């Protein structure tokens, strides 16, 4: 799998964040974030809790509003214009820590809802696409069940399939394995690795350092709302530059 990390990254820019700042009330959550993500690049964002990593990726699809600076996704500038926001959201898939599947809809309906209503794809075609992606995450036989009947790992894989059904060009993962039992983490990570091998642009907030080593082109370490250090995984883990990073790594890898 190590060769996955060596797949070439194009120099086409997928996400461009410039001097972005965000406040919750008077609390300065994100400070002067500058980040350029290239097409096909896979980035893992890590850092202590409260460092703003989730907030950062939630700003990219406007689940959180930023106050200053600019975010450009796929050439579309993120502003308060709802049309732009909806356009970006339909191009950017997102997976949440708590899956957030729609409990009143079957797995199939979860996967076809957005393609039918946002992309205006005919129902049959949407169902075929959904079946394709459910096969890909290895749960096609659960298509007619409800989310409540599935295990956590299965639910998270459905959530990934649901995002993929919109044929996104960028995928955001917000701690996708943090709410899972250890034995289910692997099945979700395997799905994500498979996705990575296909060249999807991915931004992933996670504490799975093994995954970061194996898949990421770049690891970003955040603390107190700032990007403290970013580097290729080998360099980052073996030879961290800042003291803060060293402390963090010693704490999470120390046992």
């Amino acid at each position, binding site marked *: 799998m190590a060769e996955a990390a060596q797949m070439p990254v194009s120099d086409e820019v997928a996400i461009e964040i410039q001097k972005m700042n965000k406040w919750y009330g008077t609390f300065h959550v994100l400070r002067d974030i500058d980040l350029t993500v290239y097409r096909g690049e896979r980035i893992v964002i890590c850092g202590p809790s409260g460092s703003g990593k989730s907030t950062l990726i939630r700003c990219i699809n406007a689940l959180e509003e930023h106050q200053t600076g600019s975010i450009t996704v796929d050439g579309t500038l993120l502003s308060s214009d709802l049309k732009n926001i909806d356009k970006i959201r*339909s191009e950017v898939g997102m997976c949440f820590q708590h899956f957030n599947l729609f409990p009143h809809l079957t797995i199939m309906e979860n996967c076809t809802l957005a393609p039918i209503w946002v992309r205006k794809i005919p129902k049959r075609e949407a169902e075929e696409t959904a079946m394709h992606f459910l096969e890909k995450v290895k749960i096609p036989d659960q298509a007619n069940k409800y989310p409540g009947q599935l295990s956590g790992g299965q639910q998270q894989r459905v959530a990934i399939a649901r995002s993929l059904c919109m044929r996104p060009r960028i995928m955001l993962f917000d701690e996708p394995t943090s709410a899972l039992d250890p034995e289910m983490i692997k099945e979700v990570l395997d799905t994500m690795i498979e996705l990575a091998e296909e060249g999807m642009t991915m931004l992933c907030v996670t504490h799975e350092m093994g995954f970061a080593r194996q898949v990421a082109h770049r690891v970003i370490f955040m603390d107190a709302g700032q990007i403290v250090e970013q580097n290729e995984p080998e360099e980052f883990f073996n030879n961290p530059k800042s003291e803060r990073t060293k402390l963090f790594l010693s704490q999470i890898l120390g046992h």
Partner: protein
Amino acid sequence: MPDTPMRAAAFVRHDQIPPSPPPASQTGIVKWVRENLFPSIGGTILTLVSIWMIYTLLVSVLPWTFSGVWSTGSLAECREVLQGRIGACFSVLTERWNQLLFGFKYPSDLYWRPTLAFVLLLAAAAPVLFFDLPRKLLIFTALYPFIAFYLIWGGTVWAPICALLGFAGGYMVYGRLVKDNFAMGLFGGAAMAVMIWLLGAHLLNHGIALLFSGPLLFATGVGVLAVAALFFRLRRSQSAASAAIIGGAVLTGWLAIVASVLVPVVFGNEIDAGGAQQGGSFALEAVPSRDMGGFMLNMLLGVVCVSLSLPLGILLALGRQSNMPIIKWICIMFIEFIRGVPLITLLFVANVVLAYFLPPGTNFDLILRVIIMITMFASAYIAEVIRGGLAALPRGQYEAADSLGLDYAQSMRLIILPQALKISIPGIVNVAVGLFKDTTLVSVISMFDLVGMIRGPILASTAWNGVYWELYGFAALLFFIVCYGISQYSQWLERRLATDHR
């Protein structure tokens, strides 16, 4: 595994123990009686006391019911038949049956019309209540209000048809415009509907000939057609220019119609919306609102107000959560005001005070006023119930809907409301049952609903003065049947919709 001797602590099970039936004392009726009726000394005493209470109740009620008299003409006759025995005078129900159901003024040869409307109501409500039925039946549900209005009130068939056309036209315009802009669709649709209604009301009052004699009206008719044509031709266009043209056309047509309608109002022409004098061959005999009564009136108010207050309550609940401060404040003020005021005062307002605010000479239907007030009252409560449901949803559901690119209307309709409404079912049913029973309050503003009929014409008559138990018991039974039905339906619905935790 090689057969090495195991140490004492190690244990491997080789054969499973098969399940066996529980001991006899743990099953059957003996267990049930012992556990539920005689579990302890205290429990035994309570059981015996309860049995004694049920016995005394039945001893007094059963003879009264079963030796009841069903076929006398007055209370005096009934007492003669009973000759001092204990017994109920149910004959008041048989003798005044039609009055109890339809009121005392509804023409007796027209009883088939509300009855038919009631039977059709069952057919119209079925596809809404039981969503496994074919969706095409909803077309009949959509048509039902107009059919029911025509059947119950009678009059010319053109009034409900005109109303229906107004809704249809408004909906079509809404459908065309909403793709570009929700507000544009809403206001465009509403303007179109109002234009059609005003035009229709005008034609009904003054005859078709006026269309050709009144140049103003003719112009507005052309305006309607032109606007309609514009909507269809420009449906794809999103440019500001086309929007301006449409807006201008709507505004012009609207002003023209307002002028053409207001001019006769201001100068004292009659604007009675009945128009029964000329209805063509499809006209049914018109029955004015003040002749409605009996349980029919309760059903009418209950059904109309529940079905109107639910969508209004949803809108209020969403409005209360809105980011737009003015909408939010309006919704909060409305809800808090209506909830802070007793329904009975609102009904008095509907009955008396509202007339002061309307132009003199307008005959604003009393039933319509009462419907508006009860609907407002119920919708404020339903809004609060639904707000509870909305608050119970995790934020993640909103975020997931947003992250998939669904717009506000879609995420509300497809994701948020289905779940919030499901949570709110018990509360909504609570309000609906309460509302249905509250329709009897109209008896205090001199409308003769079921309770009004009992209190007024029936108990006041010399023949039946003094028959309380039978009449009020019957009223209670009718209301109980409907309310129990609603409650059972809601429990079925909750079980049917329980998908998330099984």
